[in-house]
Protein backbone atom coordinates (compact mmCIF):
# COMPACT_ATOMS: atom_id res chain seq x y z
CA UNK A 1 0.00 0.00 0.00
CA UNK A 2 1.36 3.44 -0.93
CA UNK A 3 1.63 6.29 1.58
CA UNK A 4 -0.23 9.62 1.44
CA UNK A 5 2.94 11.39 0.36
CA UNK A 6 3.48 8.97 -2.49
CA UNK A 7 -0.20 9.14 -3.45
CA UNK A 8 -0.09 12.93 -3.69
CA UNK A 9 2.92 12.73 -5.92
CA UNK A 10 0.80 10.67 -8.29
CA UNK A 11 -2.17 13.06 -8.36
CA UNK A 12 -0.95 15.18 -11.27
CA UNK A 13 0.01 12.23 -13.45
CA UNK A 14 -3.32 10.61 -12.64
CA UNK A 15 -5.27 13.77 -13.51
CA UNK A 16 -3.18 14.20 -16.68
CA UNK A 17 -4.23 10.68 -17.68
CA UNK A 18 -0.63 9.51 -17.71
CA UNK A 19 -0.61 7.03 -14.84
CA UNK A 20 0.01 3.38 -15.63
CA UNK A 21 -2.87 0.99 -14.84
CA UNK A 22 -0.94 -0.66 -11.99
CA UNK A 23 -0.23 2.68 -10.29
CA UNK A 24 -3.83 3.73 -10.89
CA UNK A 25 -4.94 0.63 -9.03
CA UNK A 26 -2.56 1.47 -6.17
CA UNK A 27 -3.89 5.01 -6.02
CA UNK A 28 -7.51 3.86 -5.99
CA UNK A 29 -6.77 1.41 -3.22
CA UNK A 30 -5.17 4.18 -1.17
CA UNK A 31 -8.02 6.52 -1.93
CA UNK A 32 -10.53 4.09 -0.49
CA UNK A 33 -8.63 3.85 2.75
CA UNK A 34 -7.59 7.52 3.17
CA UNK A 35 -10.34 10.11 3.52
CA UNK A 36 -7.89 13.02 3.27
CA UNK A 37 -6.47 11.96 -0.11
CA UNK A 38 -9.97 10.97 -1.21
CA UNK A 39 -11.26 14.47 -0.45
CA UNK A 40 -8.33 16.23 -2.07
CA UNK A 41 -8.55 14.23 -5.24
CA UNK A 42 -12.33 14.72 -5.36
CA UNK A 43 -11.77 18.47 -5.04
CA UNK A 44 -9.38 18.53 -8.01
CA UNK A 45 -11.75 16.38 -10.04
CA UNK A 46 -14.63 18.71 -9.17
CA UNK A 47 -12.54 21.66 -10.42
CA UNK A 48 -11.99 19.87 -13.72
CA UNK A 49 -15.67 19.03 -14.06
CA UNK A 50 -16.79 22.58 -13.36
CA UNK A 51 -14.27 24.02 -15.84
CA UNK A 52 -15.35 21.50 -18.44
CA UNK A 53 -19.09 21.66 -18.07
CA UNK A 54 -20.13 24.91 -16.46
CA UNK A 55 -21.07 27.50 -19.05
CA UNK A 56 -21.47 30.58 -16.93
CA UNK A 57 -19.49 32.70 -19.39
CA UNK A 58 -21.46 35.21 -21.42
CA UNK A 59 -22.20 34.09 -24.94
CA UNK A 60 -20.82 35.82 -27.98
CA UNK A 61 -23.03 38.61 -29.42
CA UNK A 62 -25.61 37.59 -31.99
CA UNK A 63 -24.05 39.97 -34.50
CA UNK A 64 -20.53 38.65 -33.99
CA UNK A 65 -20.43 36.39 -37.05
CA UNK A 66 -21.75 39.15 -39.31
CA UNK A 67 -19.21 41.60 -37.95
CA UNK A 68 -16.36 39.18 -38.54
CA UNK A 69 -17.58 38.47 -42.04
CA UNK A 70 -17.95 42.11 -43.02
CA UNK A 71 -14.47 42.86 -41.64
CA UNK A 72 -13.18 39.83 -43.55
CA UNK A 73 -14.74 41.00 -46.82
CA UNK A 74 -13.42 44.52 -46.28
CA UNK A 75 -9.88 43.27 -45.59
CA UNK A 76 -9.97 40.99 -48.57
CA UNK A 77 -10.78 43.94 -50.77
CA UNK A 78 -7.40 45.38 -49.81
CA UNK A 79 -5.58 42.12 -50.25
CA UNK A 80 -5.30 41.72 -54.06
CA UNK A 81 -2.44 44.25 -54.28
CA UNK A 82 -0.44 42.32 -51.68
CA UNK A 83 -1.35 39.04 -53.34
CA UNK A 84 -0.30 40.43 -56.70
CA UNK A 85 3.09 41.47 -55.35
CA UNK A 86 3.56 38.09 -53.72
CA UNK A 87 2.57 36.21 -56.86
CA UNK A 88 4.85 38.39 -58.96
CA UNK A 89 7.69 37.67 -56.55
CA UNK A 90 7.00 33.96 -56.80
CA UNK A 91 7.28 34.14 -60.57
CA UNK A 92 10.13 36.60 -60.67
CA UNK A 93 12.42 35.02 -58.10
CA UNK A 94 12.97 31.75 -60.00
CA UNK A 95 13.62 33.79 -63.14
CA UNK A 96 16.18 35.88 -61.27
CA UNK A 97 17.69 32.69 -59.88
CA UNK A 98 17.87 31.20 -63.38
CA UNK A 99 19.52 34.35 -64.71
CA UNK A 100 22.13 34.36 -61.95
CA UNK A 101 22.72 30.66 -62.51
CA UNK A 102 23.29 31.28 -66.19
CA UNK A 103 25.68 34.09 -65.33
CA UNK A 104 27.54 31.84 -62.91
CA UNK A 105 27.86 29.13 -65.54
CA UNK A 106 29.16 31.63 -68.07
CA UNK A 107 31.69 33.03 -65.64
CA UNK A 108 32.84 29.73 -64.17
CA UNK A 109 33.05 27.67 -67.33
CA UNK A 110 36.40 28.15 -69.11
CA UNK A 111 36.26 29.46 -72.67
CA UNK A 112 38.02 26.46 -74.14
CA UNK A 113 38.40 23.05 -72.55
CA UNK A 114 41.93 22.66 -71.23
CA UNK A 115 43.40 19.21 -72.01
CA UNK A 116 45.40 17.62 -69.22
CA UNK A 117 49.07 18.29 -69.80
CA UNK A 118 51.02 15.17 -70.43
CA UNK A 119 54.62 14.45 -69.86
CA UNK A 120 56.70 11.65 -71.22
CA UNK A 121 55.72 8.29 -69.79
CA UNK A 122 52.08 9.21 -69.06
CA UNK A 123 49.42 7.06 -70.57
CA UNK A 124 46.69 8.59 -72.62
CA UNK A 125 43.59 7.33 -74.34
CA UNK A 126 43.64 7.20 -78.08
CA UNK A 127 40.40 7.45 -80.05
CA UNK A 128 39.43 4.41 -82.03
CA UNK A 129 39.73 6.07 -85.43
CA UNK A 130 43.27 7.26 -84.60
CA UNK A 131 44.26 3.81 -83.50
CA UNK A 132 42.90 2.42 -86.77
CA UNK A 133 44.83 5.01 -88.72
CA UNK A 134 48.01 4.11 -86.91
CA UNK A 135 47.30 0.41 -87.24
CA UNK A 136 47.51 -0.13 -83.48
CA UNK A 137 47.87 -3.90 -82.96
CA UNK A 138 46.61 -3.98 -79.37
CA UNK A 139 43.26 -2.20 -78.92
CA UNK A 140 42.66 -4.10 -75.66
CA UNK A 141 45.59 -2.37 -73.97
CA UNK A 142 44.36 1.00 -75.11
CA UNK A 143 40.95 0.19 -73.63
CA UNK A 144 42.70 -0.75 -70.38
CA UNK A 145 44.46 2.55 -70.34
CA UNK A 146 41.22 4.42 -70.77
CA UNK A 147 40.01 2.88 -67.53
CA UNK A 148 42.97 4.07 -65.52
CA UNK A 149 42.88 7.65 -66.64
CA UNK A 150 41.90 9.65 -63.55
CA UNK A 151 38.96 12.00 -63.88
CA UNK A 152 39.58 15.68 -63.56
CA UNK A 153 38.88 16.71 -59.96
CA UNK A 154 36.51 19.37 -61.28
CA UNK A 155 34.33 16.75 -62.92
CA UNK A 156 33.04 15.39 -59.60
CA UNK A 157 32.35 18.87 -58.37
CA UNK A 158 30.52 19.78 -61.55
CA UNK A 159 28.43 16.61 -61.34
CA UNK A 160 27.43 17.33 -57.74
CA UNK A 161 26.69 20.90 -58.66
CA UNK A 162 24.52 19.89 -61.58
CA UNK A 163 22.55 17.52 -59.33
CA UNK A 164 22.09 20.35 -56.86
CA UNK A 165 21.00 22.75 -59.59
CA UNK A 166 18.58 20.13 -60.83
CA UNK A 167 16.97 20.08 -57.38
CA UNK A 168 16.76 23.87 -57.29
CA UNK A 169 15.21 23.89 -60.72
CA UNK A 170 12.38 21.56 -59.68
CA UNK A 171 11.77 23.64 -56.61
CA UNK A 172 11.86 26.98 -58.37
CA UNK A 173 9.71 25.73 -61.21
CA UNK A 174 7.02 24.56 -58.83
CA UNK A 175 7.13 27.93 -57.06
CA UNK A 176 6.90 29.73 -60.35
CA UNK A 177 3.96 27.56 -61.32
CA UNK A 178 2.24 28.42 -58.02
CA UNK A 179 2.92 32.09 -58.74
CA UNK A 180 1.40 31.81 -62.20
CA UNK A 181 -1.65 30.07 -60.71
CA UNK A 182 -2.04 32.88 -58.20
CA UNK A 183 -1.75 35.49 -60.96
CA UNK A 184 -4.34 33.61 -62.99
CA UNK A 185 -6.68 33.56 -60.00
CA UNK A 186 -6.19 37.28 -59.44
CA UNK A 187 -6.92 37.97 -63.08
CA UNK A 188 -10.05 35.88 -62.84
CA UNK A 189 -11.17 37.72 -59.69
CA UNK A 190 -10.46 41.09 -61.30
CA UNK A 191 -12.56 40.08 -64.29
CA UNK A 192 -15.38 39.01 -62.01
CA UNK A 193 -15.23 42.25 -59.98
CA UNK A 194 -15.30 44.30 -63.17
CA UNK A 195 -18.25 42.30 -64.37
CA UNK A 196 -20.10 42.91 -61.09
CA UNK A 197 -19.37 46.61 -61.29
CA UNK A 198 -20.58 46.74 -64.86
CA UNK A 199 -23.76 44.84 -64.17
CA UNK A 200 -24.49 46.92 -61.04
CA UNK A 201 -23.92 50.17 -62.92
CA UNK A 202 -25.83 48.88 -65.88
CA UNK A 203 -28.88 48.09 -63.78
CA UNK A 204 -28.85 51.50 -62.16
CA UNK A 205 -28.49 53.33 -65.48
CA UNK A 206 -32.00 54.72 -66.15
CA UNK A 207 -32.01 54.84 -69.93
CA UNK A 208 -29.98 51.85 -70.82
CA UNK A 209 -31.60 48.62 -71.78
CA UNK A 210 -31.15 46.36 -68.81
CA UNK A 211 -28.47 43.74 -69.12
CA UNK A 212 -28.54 41.23 -66.32
CA UNK A 213 -26.38 38.53 -64.86
CA UNK A 214 -28.43 36.15 -66.97
CA UNK A 215 -27.30 38.00 -70.08
CA UNK A 216 -23.73 37.43 -69.06
CA UNK A 217 -24.46 33.77 -68.66
CA UNK A 218 -26.29 33.65 -71.95
CA UNK A 219 -23.39 35.32 -73.70
CA UNK A 220 -24.80 38.82 -74.31
CA UNK A 221 -22.08 40.16 -72.06
CA UNK A 222 -18.62 38.66 -72.06
CA UNK A 223 -18.62 35.69 -69.71
CA UNK A 224 -15.59 36.69 -67.65
CA UNK A 225 -16.89 34.60 -64.78
CA UNK A 226 -15.90 31.52 -66.64
CA UNK A 227 -12.37 30.40 -66.00
CA UNK A 228 -10.10 30.47 -69.00
CA UNK A 229 -12.10 33.12 -70.85
CA UNK A 230 -9.94 36.07 -71.72
CA UNK A 231 -11.69 39.39 -71.48
CA UNK A 232 -10.72 42.48 -73.34
CA UNK A 233 -12.03 46.00 -72.61
CA UNK A 234 -13.27 46.41 -76.18
CA UNK A 235 -15.74 43.58 -75.86
CA UNK A 236 -18.65 45.13 -73.88
CA UNK A 237 -21.79 44.75 -75.87
CA UNK A 238 -23.00 48.33 -76.10
CA UNK A 239 -22.14 51.95 -75.52
CA UNK A 240 -23.50 52.08 -72.01
CA UNK A 241 -21.17 49.46 -70.71
CA UNK A 242 -18.36 50.98 -72.71
CA UNK A 243 -19.03 54.28 -70.95
CA UNK A 244 -19.12 52.62 -67.55
CA UNK A 245 -15.85 51.01 -68.23
CA UNK A 246 -14.23 54.33 -69.00
CA UNK A 247 -15.80 55.96 -65.95
CA UNK A 248 -14.64 53.22 -63.67
CA UNK A 249 -11.08 52.36 -64.48
CA UNK A 250 -9.79 49.17 -62.93
Amino acid at each position, binding site marked *: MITCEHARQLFDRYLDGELSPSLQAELHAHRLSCSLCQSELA*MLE*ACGDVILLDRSEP*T*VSASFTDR*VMSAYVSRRAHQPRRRLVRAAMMVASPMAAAASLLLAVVLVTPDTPQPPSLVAGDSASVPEFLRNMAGDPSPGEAAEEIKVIPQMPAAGFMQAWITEVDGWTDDTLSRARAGFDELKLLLHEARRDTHDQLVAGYRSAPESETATQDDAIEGTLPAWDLPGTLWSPSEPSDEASQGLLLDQPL
Partner: protein
Amino acid sequence: MIRRQAEKSAPRLTRRTEKRLIAQISKGCEASARELVEAHQDRLFAFVWRVLRNREDAEEVCQEAFLRAFGSLDSFSPEYRFSTWLFTIAYRLCLNLIRRRRALTGELDFAELPSRDQDVSDRFAESEEARRLKDKIWEAVDRLSVPQRAAVLLFYREGMSCDQIARTLSIPMATAKSHLHRARGKLRDSLSGLVEDWSHLEALREAAS
Protein backbone atom coordinates in the same frame (compact mmCIF):
# COMPACT_ATOMS: atom_id res chain seq x y z
CA MET B 1 -10.80 11.42 -13.46
CA ILE B 2 -13.25 12.24 -16.16
CA ARG B 3 -11.82 13.48 -19.46
CA ARG B 4 -14.68 14.43 -21.72
CA GLN B 5 -15.07 16.74 -24.58
CA ALA B 6 -17.20 19.81 -24.05
CA GLU B 7 -20.47 18.31 -25.24
CA LYS B 8 -22.43 21.52 -24.84
CA SER B 9 -20.43 23.60 -27.31
CA ALA B 10 -20.94 23.62 -31.09
CA PRO B 11 -20.17 20.28 -32.75
CA ARG B 12 -16.52 20.06 -33.74
CA LEU B 13 -15.65 19.80 -37.39
CA THR B 14 -13.97 16.71 -38.69
CA ARG B 15 -10.46 17.14 -40.09
CA ARG B 16 -11.78 16.44 -43.56
CA THR B 17 -14.45 19.12 -43.37
CA GLU B 18 -11.94 21.54 -41.90
CA LYS B 19 -9.50 20.89 -44.75
CA ARG B 20 -12.22 21.35 -47.34
CA LEU B 21 -13.38 24.60 -45.80
CA ILE B 22 -9.83 25.96 -45.61
CA ALA B 23 -9.19 25.07 -49.26
CA GLN B 24 -12.38 26.88 -50.26
CA ILE B 25 -11.57 29.94 -48.15
CA SER B 26 -8.19 30.12 -49.90
CA LYS B 27 -10.13 30.39 -53.16
CA GLY B 28 -12.21 33.23 -51.72
CA CYS B 29 -15.35 31.36 -50.61
CA GLU B 30 -17.09 33.53 -48.01
CA ALA B 31 -19.67 30.89 -47.07
CA SER B 32 -16.88 28.55 -45.98
CA ALA B 33 -15.30 31.31 -43.91
CA ARG B 34 -18.64 31.89 -42.21
CA GLU B 35 -19.01 28.18 -41.53
CA LEU B 36 -15.58 28.04 -39.93
CA VAL B 37 -16.32 31.12 -37.80
CA GLU B 38 -19.62 29.68 -36.62
CA ALA B 39 -18.01 26.37 -35.76
CA HIS B 40 -15.33 27.94 -33.56
CA GLN B 41 -16.66 31.23 -32.24
CA ASP B 42 -18.35 29.95 -29.06
CA ARG B 43 -15.41 27.93 -27.86
CA LEU B 44 -12.90 30.59 -28.76
CA PHE B 45 -14.94 33.32 -27.11
CA ALA B 46 -15.37 31.30 -23.90
CA PHE B 47 -11.61 30.75 -23.72
CA VAL B 48 -10.71 34.37 -24.47
CA TRP B 49 -13.35 35.71 -22.09
CA ARG B 50 -11.98 33.51 -19.30
CA VAL B 51 -8.51 34.91 -19.96
CA LEU B 52 -9.55 38.57 -20.29
CA ARG B 53 -12.79 38.67 -18.25
CA ASN B 54 -14.22 41.40 -20.45
CA ARG B 55 -16.80 40.93 -23.14
CA GLU B 56 -15.85 43.75 -25.52
CA ASP B 57 -12.16 42.91 -25.36
CA ALA B 58 -12.89 39.22 -25.83
CA GLU B 59 -15.01 39.85 -28.94
CA GLU B 60 -12.40 42.17 -30.36
CA VAL B 61 -9.67 39.60 -29.82
CA CYS B 62 -11.78 36.81 -31.31
CA GLN B 63 -12.59 38.86 -34.40
CA GLU B 64 -8.95 39.76 -34.93
CA ALA B 65 -7.92 36.13 -34.41
CA PHE B 66 -10.31 34.98 -37.15
CA LEU B 67 -9.19 37.71 -39.53
CA ARG B 68 -5.51 36.98 -38.99
CA ALA B 69 -6.09 33.27 -39.38
CA PHE B 70 -7.95 33.79 -42.66
CA GLY B 71 -5.40 36.33 -43.84
CA SER B 72 -2.51 33.91 -43.51
CA LEU B 73 -4.08 30.61 -44.45
CA ASP B 74 -1.17 29.91 -46.79
CA SER B 75 1.10 29.57 -43.77
CA PHE B 76 -1.30 27.17 -42.01
CA SER B 77 0.06 23.67 -41.73
CA PRO B 78 -2.71 21.09 -42.28
CA GLU B 79 -1.01 18.66 -39.92
CA TYR B 80 -2.43 20.75 -37.04
CA ARG B 81 -6.04 21.41 -36.24
CA PHE B 82 -7.35 24.81 -37.27
CA SER B 83 -8.63 25.30 -33.71
CA THR B 84 -5.12 24.89 -32.29
CA TRP B 85 -3.85 27.56 -34.66
CA LEU B 86 -6.79 29.84 -33.93
CA PHE B 87 -6.36 29.51 -30.16
CA THR B 88 -2.64 30.22 -30.56
CA ILE B 89 -3.33 33.47 -32.41
CA ALA B 90 -6.05 34.44 -29.93
CA TYR B 91 -3.84 33.72 -26.93
CA ARG B 92 -1.04 35.89 -28.33
CA LEU B 93 -3.53 38.69 -28.96
CA CYS B 94 -4.73 38.32 -25.36
CA LEU B 95 -1.17 38.60 -24.08
CA ASN B 96 -0.57 41.69 -26.22
CA LEU B 97 -3.73 43.28 -24.91
CA ILE B 98 -2.85 42.48 -21.31
CA ARG B 99 0.63 43.93 -21.81
CA ARG B 100 -0.80 47.10 -23.31
CA ARG B 101 -3.26 47.43 -20.44
CA ARG B 102 -0.55 46.82 -17.89
CA ALA B 103 1.56 49.53 -19.46
CA LEU B 104 -1.37 51.89 -18.98
CA THR B 105 -2.57 50.78 -15.55
CA GLY B 106 0.60 49.51 -13.87
CA GLU B 107 0.81 45.92 -12.68
CA LEU B 108 -2.93 45.49 -12.44
CA ASP B 109 -4.02 41.94 -13.04
CA PHE B 110 -7.22 41.50 -14.98
CA ALA B 111 -8.23 38.59 -12.80
CA GLU B 112 -8.49 40.91 -9.80
CA LEU B 113 -10.97 43.13 -11.57
CA PRO B 114 -14.61 42.41 -10.92
CA SER B 115 -16.25 40.99 -13.99
CA ARG B 116 -18.38 43.42 -15.97
CA ASP B 117 -20.55 40.55 -17.02
CA GLN B 118 -22.25 39.77 -13.75
CA ASP B 119 -25.62 39.70 -15.43
CA VAL B 120 -24.92 36.53 -17.37
CA SER B 121 -27.70 34.04 -17.12
CA ASP B 122 -26.84 31.04 -15.07
CA ARG B 123 -27.75 27.98 -17.02
CA PHE B 124 -26.37 25.64 -14.39
CA ALA B 125 -29.26 24.22 -12.46
CA GLU B 126 -27.96 23.31 -9.02
CA SER B 127 -28.35 23.51 -5.30
CA GLU B 128 -27.28 26.56 -3.33
CA GLU B 129 -24.25 24.68 -2.04
CA ALA B 130 -23.22 23.52 -5.50
CA ARG B 131 -23.57 27.05 -6.89
CA ARG B 132 -21.48 28.47 -4.06
CA LEU B 133 -18.72 25.95 -4.68
CA LYS B 134 -18.84 26.46 -8.42
CA ASP B 135 -18.39 30.21 -7.92
CA LYS B 136 -15.51 29.57 -5.55
CA ILE B 137 -13.86 27.31 -8.11
CA TRP B 138 -14.13 29.96 -10.83
CA GLU B 139 -12.81 32.59 -8.45
CA ALA B 140 -9.83 30.34 -7.76
CA VAL B 141 -9.33 29.85 -11.51
CA ASP B 142 -9.46 33.64 -12.00
CA ARG B 143 -6.69 34.07 -9.46
CA LEU B 144 -4.32 31.87 -11.46
CA SER B 145 -1.67 33.54 -13.61
CA VAL B 146 -2.64 34.03 -17.27
CA PRO B 147 -0.59 31.08 -18.62
CA GLN B 148 -1.79 28.84 -15.79
CA ARG B 149 -5.41 29.78 -16.45
CA ALA B 150 -4.95 29.24 -20.18
CA ALA B 151 -3.36 25.84 -19.58
CA VAL B 152 -6.19 24.75 -17.27
CA LEU B 153 -8.88 25.94 -19.68
CA LEU B 154 -7.28 24.27 -22.67
CA PHE B 155 -6.77 21.05 -20.72
CA TYR B 156 -10.22 20.70 -19.20
CA ARG B 157 -12.48 22.65 -21.52
CA GLU B 158 -10.80 21.94 -24.85
CA GLY B 159 -9.57 18.47 -23.93
CA MET B 160 -6.05 19.27 -25.17
CA SER B 161 -3.04 17.16 -24.23
CA CYS B 162 0.02 18.80 -22.66
CA ASP B 163 1.68 18.63 -26.06
CA GLN B 164 -1.18 20.49 -27.73
CA ILE B 165 -1.26 23.05 -24.91
CA ALA B 166 2.46 23.64 -25.40
CA ARG B 167 1.94 24.22 -29.12
CA THR B 168 -1.03 26.50 -28.55
CA LEU B 169 0.73 28.63 -25.95
CA SER B 170 4.05 28.46 -27.89
CA ILE B 171 5.95 27.16 -24.88
CA PRO B 172 7.96 23.98 -24.23
CA MET B 173 5.93 20.97 -23.15
CA ALA B 174 7.66 20.84 -19.75
CA THR B 175 6.57 24.43 -19.12
CA ALA B 176 3.00 23.63 -20.17
CA LYS B 177 2.95 20.72 -17.70
CA SER B 178 4.42 22.90 -15.03
CA HIS B 179 1.71 25.54 -15.56
CA LEU B 180 -0.98 22.89 -15.32
CA HIS B 181 0.46 21.28 -12.19
CA ARG B 182 1.10 24.60 -10.42
CA ALA B 183 -2.41 25.66 -11.30
CA ARG B 184 -3.77 22.54 -9.61
CA GLY B 185 -1.60 23.28 -6.59
CA LYS B 186 -3.01 26.81 -6.37
CA LEU B 187 -6.58 25.58 -6.80
CA ARG B 188 -6.01 23.09 -4.01
CA ASP B 189 -4.63 25.81 -1.73
CA SER B 190 -7.49 28.17 -2.52
CA LEU B 191 -10.25 25.64 -2.06
CA SER B 192 -8.97 23.33 0.66
CA GLY B 193 -10.63 25.06 3.61
CA LEU B 194 -14.03 25.39 2.01
CA VAL B 195 -15.47 21.96 2.46
CA GLU B 196 -14.62 19.34 5.00
CA ASP B 197 -14.97 16.46 2.63
CA TRP B 198 -15.16 17.02 -1.11
CA SER B 199 -15.74 13.39 -1.82
CA HIS B 200 -19.38 13.59 -0.74
CA LEU B 201 -19.99 16.33 -3.31
CA GLU B 202 -20.97 13.96 -6.02
CA ALA B 203 -24.05 16.17 -6.36
CA LEU B 204 -21.83 18.91 -7.80
CA ARG B 205 -20.50 16.62 -10.46
CA GLU B 206 -23.92 15.21 -11.15
CA ALA B 207 -25.33 18.72 -11.52
CA ALA B 208 -22.45 19.66 -13.81
CA SER B 209 -23.03 16.69 -16.08
